[in-house]
């Protein structure tokens, strides 16, 4: 492999660099520190309470108490929170990306008055964190009678997700060559057709990257859900985990099983779609 034949050699040199070798060992050490919490959590999740208290923190579990997972699943109402989280994520994420794509296409490709202002507003929107105004969001959702409902959480999620996604897709659509859409314009195709038939297919990789990033963000979101979903039957996983922690924090094995079950979906999605993460993040932040 190319990487291995060039390993430890700086750019422009063919000699093995001792500094790089040292650096490598340092990095491996630091990486081990970084993943140590995960190891600790998984180990603890498989220990019975008595062996948590009796054994060394990093000792592998001897009794393999899978029962922790079953207990945590029922006590933490995971069957409810998983379903809620799935419904909310499955509706919000594709819908949000689609709305953003439409808006980004219009801003990037349709000459209209006020386009620049909208773009400015959008960039401004990417920078305003909603954590700052949880109570007013609660009031607005309440005014529509949507507290404790799926639309009640999905609509603010959409509102605060749109600017960032529009910003990313605007950059992407602006870089699509003009010839691609001009020909269709000349043939009399509407902007709707061009968007649907040309821009959506062309930008599929960028859209998938956004979908995957947004999946993780939506699945993990806590603060907004805390304010809007107050009924335990409507809770998502982060809310469920928080409640589990405050109720059963001394059942160490089960608490850690609950943590593992909460973070597993996002972790798997990341490990499977790794390269999309980098693609999505970098088109978003660096390309300007």
């Amino acid at each position: 492999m190319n990487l291995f034949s060039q390993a430890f050699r700086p750019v422009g040199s063919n000699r093995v660099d001792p500094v790089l070798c040292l650096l490598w060992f340092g990095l491996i050490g630091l990486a081990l520190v970084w993943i140590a919490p995960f190891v600790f959590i998984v180990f603890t999740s498989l220990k019975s309470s008595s062996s948590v208290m009796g054994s060394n923190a990093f000792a592998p579990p001897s009794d393999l108490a899978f029962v922790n997972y079953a207990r945590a699943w029922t006590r933490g109402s995971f069957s409810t929170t998983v379903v809620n989280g799935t419904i909310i994520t499955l509706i919000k994420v594709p819908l949000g990306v689609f709305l953003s794509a439409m808006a980004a296409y219009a801003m990037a490709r349709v000459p209209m008055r006020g386009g620049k202002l909208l773009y400015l507003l959008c960039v401004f929107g990417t920078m305003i964190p909603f954590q700052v105004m949880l109570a007013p969001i609660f009031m607005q959702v309440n005014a529509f009678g949507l507290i404790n409902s799926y639309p009640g959480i999905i609509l603010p999620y959409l509102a605060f997700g749109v600017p960032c996604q529009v910003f990313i897709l605007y950059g992407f659509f602006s870089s699509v060559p003009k010839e691609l859409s001009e020909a269709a314009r000349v043939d009399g195709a509407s902007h709707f057709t061009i968007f649907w038939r040309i821009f959506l297919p062309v930008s599929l990789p960028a859209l998938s990257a956004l979908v995957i990033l947004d999946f993780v963000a939506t699945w993990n979101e806590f603060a907004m859900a805390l304010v809007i979903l107050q009924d335990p039957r409507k809770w998502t996983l982060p809310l469920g985990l928080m409640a589990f922690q405050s109720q059963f924090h001394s059942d160490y094995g089960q608490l850690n099983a609950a943590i593992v079950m909460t973070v597993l979906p996002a972790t798997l999605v990341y490990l499977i779609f790794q390269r999309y993460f980098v693609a999505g993040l970098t088109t978003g932040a660096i390309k300007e």
Partner: protein
Amino acid sequence: MARLSLRPDKQGYLLLAPAVFVYFLFAFYPMLDTVRMSFSSWNGLSAHRSFAGLDNYRAVLTADPVFWGALRNTIGWTVLAVLLPNLISFGLALALNQRLPGRSWLRVAFYLPVIIAPIAVATIWKWMYDPFFGLFNNLLTAWHLQSWIVDWLGDRHYALGAVFAAHVWQSVGFSMVLFLAGLQSVSTTLIEAARIDGAGRWAVFRHVTLPALRPTLAVVLVLSVVNSLKAFDIIYGMTGGGPAQSTQMLAMWAYTQAMQLGDFGKGAAVSVILLLITLVIVVPYLRWSLRPARSGK
């Protein structure tokens, strides 16, 4: 889709409409409402909001013993969160940009905490800080450092630092990926040329790598400032602002005032102050970043 005989700009407005509609209703309006609410006295329940002028601001700035502590924590947290994790991220990115075996796995290891829900990070770290069976005190015992054992989250001298450590663990990977992407734009031919000309490691870094990374640096700095101003989940999950308000932050305090103590006016005043701080940092950045975009067209 059917061919519609609408003027092109009308088609554009139609495409924009849904996103703009949702944004204005559920993001922009609440922001304006925050400002309006901050000038009124309201418990969130009664139908009537009475105008209170600057009372809320006066109460927050002069009579609220928690506000100034929360402001100090927010500023300290933000400054440290911009410096410390990003320095680590930068170092990691530089190192992982070298030809090292297994570097993609190393990247995964450092990025993994980023995709974990912040509330789960809080739960994980709270458990690691557990005074009796947690990882840290366990390790200290194993290393015969029993005298160092403290109740990390229960002691107001250590709590904020303990929460910050969890934040560092979670956020290093994010900036690292941005830096790595920025490093891709550094021309390798330029580096090779500099090397051949006899430039040392430091000279290459100083005169080739660093200038090419300037736009990335700006993005990373602004993103980490905004991310730390909104620090909420991790504090809510680990300490809830305690002990003795020692980990209280503005975003959390605004939430507590309105949603838990029922004083929406005062909560909104705290929100507005936080919004203003955000604007002071964001607006100059926006002006800076939009200028090259305009000339590029």
